[in-house]
């Protein structure tokens, strides 16, 4: 085994025993990047020099005995997270040259814990997409099959972890952008409760839905990352001032006596038969651990996608109004006047999917249509949230497939926005209700593509998700595989 293939907790053990240094780990990661990056293209910006400097610094701290579970561990950051002095693009031409003057809170926290940043990873432009095909820096490929997409929008974060081009990474999830690529790339991805992790320094897409979360190689690493990034931040007024538990304490508690809800509305026509098969095996493993699986109902499930495709674009159209060619980013050659400059800048700076969503959002919020679209969607959102509140009186966690299909081929859904949107059909509800969700690997298709299972829990119940996912992971006896690169 190479060092870059290990998990955070395995490396941490080697570090504390002084058997390896952070510098050796970082060397191993960059050697891997040099070998496979041309095929995968996870990264938009590499931070090699800074990474080695940070590793040397971590090694000094390690010698002094100042060690946290993240000290010296190489982590990749989705290019939607602001990094002081390092270009942050959101995969968009309009921010291609933007250099933030500050770090996002999650970046600060990881830095303080001693993590080493390897670089910024690729994403759909402004996190709008499910395939990482809309980045202005080109596509990212799925490490399990280079003809396929890695999922999105955090496709770079997922592919980099799956291909061992980093040990863990951060992404953001507005409608499934952590969980769906985690499932499609065979890694663990968690979207925390809305308000659990500070969004300060996360470039906004849809502010009432966005959350930052980790991509890791196993559930224990997910708990370790959550311990670092969770918590209240006075700079994000929507972050919630609640105590954060030690998530690693949930790892080996088991799930004996738990009730797991299986929502009938999520087991619908259109699910790939191999995904369905994997779900059945997952249920069998869970029941073998002493949990009871019961059918539940989330009656408004069928409306989630429609609600999302009003609310997310509405918030996006407002958030993206700031890109005007004045304060930062790209400006198109001087227009005759300010209005013309705005229009030329935004039309040349944004890609097609971003413009499509700005148009839907602007229309839905425009005079005369607000009640019919935005207000109506917000009301149905209330009903969806109510569905979950009711469900969690009947069960501890809910189990669903993360995505209806395994990774699809590059280009397959680019010309049909609605088909693309449908790949998030099982993940969107958690964002609308604000609840946490985790995707864990639960098998492979016969072609060797990863499949993910999603667990959902009530607000601020990330601990339950870790407890459930960890029990499943330890007992599923899934074949240990690595992508063949």
């Amino acid at each position, binding site marked *: 085994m190479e060092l870059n293939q290990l998990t955070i907790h395995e490396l941490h053990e080697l570090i504390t025993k002084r058997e390896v240094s952070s510098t050796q780990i970082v060397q191993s990661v960059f050697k891997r990047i040099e070998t496979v990056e041309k095929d995968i293209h996870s990264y938009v910006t590499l931070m090699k020099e800074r990474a080695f400097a940070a590793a040397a610094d971590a090694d000094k701290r390690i010698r002094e005995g100042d060690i946290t579970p993240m000290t010296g561990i190489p982590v990749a950051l989705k290019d939607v997270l602001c990094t002081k002095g390092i270009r942050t693009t959101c995969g968009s031409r309009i921010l291609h040259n933007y250099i933030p003057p500050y770090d996002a809170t999650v970046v600060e926290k990881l830095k303080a814990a001693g993590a080493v940043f390897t670089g910024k990873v690729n994403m759909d432009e402004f996190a709008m997409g499910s395939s990482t095909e809309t980045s202005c820096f080109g596509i990212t490929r799925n490490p399990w099959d280079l003809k396929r997409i890695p999922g999105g929008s955090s496709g770079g974060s997922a592919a980099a972890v799956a291909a061992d081009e980093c040990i863990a990474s951060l992404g953001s999830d507005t409608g499934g952008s952590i969980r769906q690529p985690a499932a499609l790339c065979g890694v663990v991805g968690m979207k925390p409760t809305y308000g659990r992790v500070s969004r300060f320094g996360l470039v906004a897409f849809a502010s009432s839905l966005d959350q930052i979360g980790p991509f890791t190689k196993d559930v224990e690493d997910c708990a370790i990352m959550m311990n670092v990034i969770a918590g209240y931040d006075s700079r994000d007024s929507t972050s*919630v001032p609640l105590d954060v538990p030690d998530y690693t304490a949930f790892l080996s508690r088991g799930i004996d006596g738990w009730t797991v809800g299986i929502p009938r509305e999520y087991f619908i026509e259109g699910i790939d038969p191999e995904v369905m098969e994997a779900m059945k095996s997952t249920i069998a493993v869970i029941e073998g651990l002493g949990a009871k699986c019961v059918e539940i109902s989330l009656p408004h499930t069928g409306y989630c996608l429609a609600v999302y495709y*009003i609310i997310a674009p509405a918030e996006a159209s407002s958030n993206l109004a700031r890109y005007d*060619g004045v304060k930062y980013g790209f400006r198109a050659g001087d227009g005759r006047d300010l209005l013309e400059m705005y229009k030329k800048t935004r*039309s040349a700076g944004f890609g097609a999917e971003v*413009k499509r969503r700005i*148009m839907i959002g602007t229309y839905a919020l425009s005079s005369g249509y607000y009640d019919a679209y935005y*207000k109506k969607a917000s009301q*149905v959102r209330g009903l969806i949230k109510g569905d979950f509140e009711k469900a969690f009186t009947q069960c501890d966690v809910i189990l669903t497939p993360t995505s209806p299909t395994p990774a699809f081929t590059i280009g397959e859904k680019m010309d049909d926005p609605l088909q693309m949107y449908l790949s998030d059909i099982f993940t969107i509800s958690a964002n609308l209700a604000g609840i946490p969700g985790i995707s864990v690997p639960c098998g492979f298709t016969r072609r060797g593509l990863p499949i993910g299972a999603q667990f959902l829990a009530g*607000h601020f119940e990330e601990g339950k998700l870790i407890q459930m996912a960890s029990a499943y992971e330890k007992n599923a006896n899934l074949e240990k595989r690595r992508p063949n690169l």
Partner: protein
Amino acid sequence: MKITRAEVEYVAHLARLEFSEDEKEKFTFQLNNILAYVDMLNQVDTTDIEPVSHAIALNNAFREDVVEDSLNPELSLANAPEARGPFFRVPKVIE
């Protein structure tokens, strides 16, 4: 048709975007498909249902009124496409 080509042009103006004739055609078609899809929301009875704008509603998230550091003018202007002195420079606004 939920949205006409003329409406697409009007919304584009509101959003400060401009499109070629081909793009207008394509967007009118795609937006109509999406709006036809979201029409399903009209099947839901939402009488007396409160709209939810945030899943975890916090009211009045105040902080202490303490002076803190903020970005200095140089850093604030460092990413500007065009700056002059302590100002952002833009094309003329007033004739």
